[in-house]
Structures are given as C-alpha cells and as structure tokens.
C-alpha cells in the first residue's frame, strides 16, 4: 500500500517537472521568435480561457469526443472478442496475429482517402479510422494474454466443472484484464492521434483537429498553440486520470 502511494506521488512529481520543462522551452522559443510566429505561454493560456467561455469550443469538443467514444468503444468491443477467440482457438490464432501485424503497420490516417470516398463526408469515416487505430493493440494484447493464461487456472476450472461460458467469463476474462488495460491505454494513444489527424484532413464540421487546422490556415499561431494545448491536456486527463482510475478499480486486488 505504502509503496504504491509513494510511486503515485513520484509519478505525479515527474509529470509536474515534465510539464514545467515543456512550457519552459515553449516560452524560450516565444522570446526569440516574433509574436506572430510563436505566442507566449501566457497569451495561449488567456486564449484558452476565452475559448472555455465560448459555446463554439464546447460544440467542437463534444463532436470530437463523440467520435472518439464511438470509434474507441467499437474497437475495444471487437478487440476483446477477437482477442479472446484468437487466444483460445489455435486454428485462428496464427493467421489472425499475422494479419494484425501486417495491418497494424499501416498508419490509420492512410485509410482516410479510401473511407471518405467509400462512406462520404460525415462522421463515419473518422469514427472508422479511430476504431482501426485502437483495434489492433487491443486485440493483440488480449490475444497474447489469453494465450499465456496459466494452464493450472484452466485445469482447475475444468475440474470444477466450468462451462465454456463460465470459463470465458470467470477465468479468461479476469486473467487477461491486466494486459487488456495496458493494451487499451496503448489503443487510446492510437485512437487519439487518429482522431485529431483525421479531423484535420477531413475539412468539415467542427472538432478539435478541424479547429487546429483552421487556425493554421489563417496563420493564427496563438490559435494553433492553444489547440495543441487543449489536445495535450485532454489526452493527459483521459489517459492518466480516467483510464488509470478504471485500471485501479478493476485491478484492485493487485494494489492491496
């Protein structure tokens, strides 16, 4: 208990130091460059405050978040199912793994032109691109974890008369949860990158990526830096606060 607490404090301190260093370099660049090329940290913060008080910002935020939720959620759902299937069925495992490794090397953003024409301008192509980005790490981590579930845990359940469903639900699923969470955090990183870049490319509607691209198009550097700030802060909140919390809740037994 005390060790997890102290590492928690340590990692928080590490984050604060990292943030200070990043902001410091930004500010140094702002001192050397003219204002229209690189705004002060303070100027961007002020703009952020103004944005937070405008309705437009929240509309974009809501659009981005709903795309993220739909894409990421779908990826987790199918990633877990396919991962469990691939991990338990020997016939499916190797081909599935090979397919994932091949497809995973394609940057998810590369699918945008195809899906744009296939699905038309709308939310769907962005959601699909987000889902592709998040699916592979999820499926791979679940599959690898399923494969390495301890044999004695499976034998014990068989001896106790577990049905197939009970085996999946009570043994495999909890056994793979630690790796699943790691995979889901990795998947979130992919999904987030895919979301922002897809929104930047697909020039319609509103969203964080679109807002960033627009600021660039009109050479509003304060807008650019403010958007980057928002993207970074949101990612940190979702990953370090939301997902970490879920992790501690689901893996409570490991932290006792």
């Amino acid at each position, binding site marked *: 208990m005390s060790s997890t607490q102290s590492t928690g404090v340590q990692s928080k301190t590490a984050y604060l130091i990292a943030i200070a260093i990043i902001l410091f370099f930004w500010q140094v660049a702002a001192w050397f460059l003219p204002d229209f090329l690189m705004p002060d940290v303070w100027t961007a913060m002020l703009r952020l405050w103004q944005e937070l008080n405008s309705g437009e910002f929240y509309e974009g935020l809501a659009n981005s978040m709903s795309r993220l939720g739909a894409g990421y959620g779908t990826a987790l759902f199918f990633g877990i199912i396919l991962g469990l299937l691939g991990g338990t069925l020997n016939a499916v495992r190797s081909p599935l793994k090979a397919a994932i490794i091949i497809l995973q090397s394609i940057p998810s953003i590369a699918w945008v032109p195809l899906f744009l024409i296939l699905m038309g301008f709308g939310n769907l192509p962005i959601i699909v691109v987000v889902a592709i980005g998040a699916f592979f790490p999820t499926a791979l981590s679940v599959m690898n974890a399923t494969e390495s579930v301890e044999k004695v845990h499976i034998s014990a359940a068989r*001896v106790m008369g577990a049905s197939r469903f009970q085996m999946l639900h009570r043994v495999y699923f909890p056994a793979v949860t630690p790796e699943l969470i790691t995979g889901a955090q990795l998947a979130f990183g992919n999904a987030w990158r895919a979301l922002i870049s897809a929104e930047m490319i697909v020039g319609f509607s509103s969203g964080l990526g679109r807002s960033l691209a627009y600021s660039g198009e009109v050479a509003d550097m304060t807008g650019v830096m403010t958007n980057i700030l928002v993207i970074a802060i949101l990612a940190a909140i979702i990953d370090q606060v939301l997902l970490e919390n879920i992790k501690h809740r689901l893996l409570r037994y490991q932290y*006792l």
Partner: protein
Amino acid sequence: MKLQFEQVTKTFGSLEVIRHFDTRVETGEIVALVGPSGCGKSTLLHMVAGLESPFSGRLLVEGKPITEPSPQRTLVFQEHALYPWMTLLENVALALEFQGRPRKEALAEAGNWLAKVELPGFEDYYPHQVSGGMRQRTALARAFIARPQVLLLDEPFGALDALTRMTLQSVLKDLIEEERPTVLLVTHDVDEALYLADRVMVFSHRPATILKEITLGHIPKTHDLSAFAAERREVLELLGIDAGSNKQASNPEGTHP
C-alpha cells in the same frame, strides 16, 4: 467410487510416461503414489481427473470409462491454482457457482468450509496476501466443498515448509475421515504417504511401473511413524535412497553423520 486402471499406457509424442499400469482402488481407499519426480504419477492423476486420456488401456470409474472432468472427481494442485483476482472466499465459492448454485448460497457455504480448514477471518483476503500454507488450506476447502467422491491430490503440500506441511496433513486427514472420498495422493514425501495412506505404491523411473505395493490398512496414525520404520526403510530403498547402506539404515537413531 471404485477406480479401475486396466493396462493404462500414456505417451507424450515418443515419450512413454506410463506403461501397462494396472490396479484397482476400492471405494474410500486412500492410496499414495510415491516415486521419482517426472515419473508420470501426476499424469495418472490428470487422467483420473479427465484432463488427459490414456494412449491405450482403460480407466474406469464405477465401471464406466472416464471421458471428461467431473466435479465428483476433484483435483488439488501443488500451488498457484487459486485465482489471484478473487478473495479466498470467492475462490472456494466458485466451485459451487460452477455447478449452478446461486452466488449468495455458494458464498455462505464457502465461509463454513473456510472455518473448517481453520481460516476464519481471512475470507476477504486475496491469495497473494496470505502464506502458502493458508493458500493450500483454501485449496483444500475448494476441493471438499464440492463433496467429491474421488479426491486427487497432486503433491498438495510440496511447496510448504516441513512444519506447515505436517499441520496441513493433519487438516487433510481429518477432512478425509469426515467425508470419506476415495483418495489418490501423489507425493514424494515418504512420511506423508505413510501417514495418510492405506496403501502405498512405489513407482519406478519413467516409464512408470509399480515397483512395490505396501498395504498398511486403514488404521489411526500420528506423525510419529516409528511403528512403520520397516515400511519406511523399504520405500526409501526402493527409491534408491540409502541403498546398500543397511548399516546406517539400521542405526536406531536413524541419523546421518
């Protein structure tokens, strides 16, 4: 439940682990299988559990061949067989939940069994928070809660220190006396075999065949096994321990220089 092994042979690829194993185990009998490690004793247990099938020969329970696992034939593993994501109570209850018993009922009964193995107050601990001895007590509770007719023990106390092991042997003996299942115990602790079993089978190196069967009968025993010194010496000699050093073996103190 009566067990019959008829010329059971088991191979893994080209590796023959058991050759023409043939014996009967009567209902309520306690049989210990002793032999060098890796000789195929555990494989025999796994076959009775229904986790593996024989390559040739037949394995019968009450005259019927074993085709799949059944809660009537339960297996206690050496260690790490408890689920780390469940508390001790949930681990024990799981055996009943897998048989379709409602969770609440299963948890209540699991509590009774944890009390029986002298673990009251530890219900909500996770396996990694308690000692190896406590984990194996839980494993025993999880095995007995299903009221098995055949109890298979695969070196259940092999990872424990000598004192804890003896305490757990007593706990196990009491549970067996109470429930009277047919017991197959794989061990390489000769004293454990003599203390718990009605009959001891000594196995050879792989492929496993029976070197000798020693019948002790179902009699009350304590951990003071001095009355079984002759049997003990015989088993040790068969296993190649102290072989050819009869002078030492007959030393009344039984100590080594």
